[in-house]
């Protein structure tokens, strides 16, 4: 158990900066998920914590000790790899106990720990099998078991679920959460899947281009993204971004989308955005769930408009509809009973109480 401190860490490959000086403090027992697109530096960061990559600049401390020059085995960490990296010639038991055996733990201590981990992960009856004889989900459990028996200060997960099918992924996600609730080990988890990030994390850290865009609880990130990138990365289907102009029209602050459509900003938000009016183009960020079919009675701040649906995707509990605004395809979520049809018009409603306004140039949420 320990906290992890990352201070101004930089990673340079030849001349390419993969990580551009990040700061991150991970508290004891915390489950932190690093999420971001391919090449954003999240895996590199994880591997630097593990000691599998050099740190070009800055420092990483685990449990208060700077570990920059400490080899992986002495960092007291355990890692679960994307492809599990189980030793194919060893049984499950041998796989899990390999690290302990190398450290010359007494035999009964090893067995006690392996049995305990196997019980937690429900793989007791698999202990004598070889990895080849296991399914993907079982291998995943063994890989976690190997990490658990070490009883390390920090767990590191490198996209551990990306090789599993969708159903198993959900199941293992819950499993990982349970294990963390039991063991309470500080965990750093890397994934590209924002759903995984949201569901698992105490704190989600969104990375992009080698820097941290924003860190916070899943709800913070979802409701108060600080940048366009975070707004777009968190939530599925992704947030819509509609280019528009912030204008004063007849004493009211409006979002002018095109000649025919201007959305009035709710009075509650007007004060917040007033100072930005006229500063060129902005983006209206609106999540699909705030673009719904218009009911007869509109709440304050909700604006109705006509949309020509291009594609509809019935999901059962809701129907996703896609329609163009200013040439951008925009996604909304409507009631299945609203009668949305491909190619048909539909009265839509935008809930501007939930809007985000983004400066198109800087990408910052205003």
């Amino acid at each position: 158990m320990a906290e992890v401190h990352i201070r101004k860490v930089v990673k340079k490959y030849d001349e390419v900066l993969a990580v551009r000086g990040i700061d991150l403090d991970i508290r004891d027992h915390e489950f932190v998920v690093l999420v971001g697109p391919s090449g954003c530096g999240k895996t590199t960061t994880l591997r630097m914590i593990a000691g599998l990559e050099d740190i070009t600049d800055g420092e990483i401390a685990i449990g208060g000790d700077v570990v920059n020059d400490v080899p992986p085995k002495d960092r007291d960490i355990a890692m679960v790899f994307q492809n599990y990296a189980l030793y194919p010639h060893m049984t499950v038991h041998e796989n899990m106990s390999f690290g302990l055996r190398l450290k010359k733990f007494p035999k009964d201590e090893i067995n006690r720990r392996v049995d305990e981990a196997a019980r937690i992960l429900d793989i007791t009856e698999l202990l004598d099998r070889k990895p080849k004889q296991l399914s993907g989900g079982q291998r995943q459990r063994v890989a976690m078991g190997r990490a658990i028996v070490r009883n390390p200060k920090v767990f590191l997960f490198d996209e551990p679920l990306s090789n599993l099918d969708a159903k198993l992924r959900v199941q293992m996600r819950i499993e990982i959460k349970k294990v963390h609730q039991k063991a309470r080990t500080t965990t750093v988890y890397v994934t590209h899947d924002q759903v995984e990030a949201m569901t698992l994390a105490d704190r989600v850290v969104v990375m992009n281009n080698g820097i941290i865009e924003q860190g916070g609880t899943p709800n913070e990130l979802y409701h108060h993204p600080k940048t366009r990138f975070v707004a777009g990365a968190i939530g599925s289907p992704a947030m819509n971004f509609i280019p528009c102009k912030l204008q004063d029209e007849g004493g009211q602050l409006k979002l002018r989308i095109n000649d025919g459509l201007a959305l009035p900003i709710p009075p509650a938000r007007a004060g917040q955005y007033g100072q930005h009016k006229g500063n060129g183009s902005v983006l209206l960020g609106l999540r699909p769930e705030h673009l719904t079919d218009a009911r007869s009675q509109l709440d304050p701040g909700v604006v109705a408009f006509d949309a020509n649906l291009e594609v509809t995707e019935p999901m059962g509990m809701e129907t996703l509809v896609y329609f163009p605004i200013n040439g951008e395809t925009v996604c909304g979520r409507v009631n299945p009973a609203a009668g949305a049809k491909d190619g048909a018009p539909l009265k839509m409603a935008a809930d501007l109480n939930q809007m985000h306004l983004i400066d198109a140039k800087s990408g910052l949420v205003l």
Partner: protein
Amino acid sequence: MVDATMKSDAAVARGRQSSSLQRTFQRKSTIAFLMTLPLILLIAVLVIYPAFYAVHLATLNKTMERYVGFSNFLFLFKRETFWMVVWQSCIFAITAVIFKAIIGFIVAHLVHNIPSKGQRKWRGMLLIPWVIPPAMSTLAWLWLFDPSYSAFNWIFERVGISPIPWLGDVYWARFCVILVNVWIGAPFFMIMYLAALKSVPEQLYEAAKIDGANWWQTMRFVTIPMMRNIIAITALFSTIVTFANFDIVRVLTRGDPLDQTHVFATWAFRVGIEGGDIPLGASVSLFMVPILTIGAIFILRDIVKRGNEA
């Protein structure tokens, strides 16, 4: 949507060069060097050095006391036997490789054709000539070609064909040497081609069938292009090995009749070791270098190419 753009960046990280693992490696590069040192020494002392030493030896006179420049080579150029050896070596290697390749190709297809549970058995049986040490199996051929007790001639006699002077006649002797070489080497081609055939995805054949390709078109447009790499590299390997062959000719004919079946290796042995003229023997063996170099360059090119693809 987000998922689609956020592919694993692990691959990217791995693609880049250095890692702390490698820093540990660098620190341990001395260990790595020590681990390869025996290999380096072995190659340097017993392969590279002798190869250059051969060039040096080739420029000495018979007693190896005097530098004579190219006169060993000039001497060889004037000898009829030398040109015969050049000729015979080329004929031997080219013919043998062609037949090995053809027979290997046919047999590989035959084995590939039959139900897969019988394939292992047939494959195992057909590779036997390759497994027996060549010196031993060539002895069996020597006995089969025996001038007075040839078991082939016995059969020929039954069916009314006059006995063949297998190793007594120059042309028959050359034929025999090639035959034995084909016998030993064809199974190797068969195994390589079979491995290549197995690596062609079944879907390609199914796609070709649906596209209406007949047997020949399937062969021409699917099988052979997919196997091209292995066909080429096997043939190159085999050319090198066949060109430098020693065992078969040495055991079967020792170069007889009248030195007419010698190849470079056996003649170099005759001249250099048995005849005691080491410089001349070295000169003879050096004539293998051009062919070997050409073969090596092609193989290397293929390997570098595949290395880049990987």
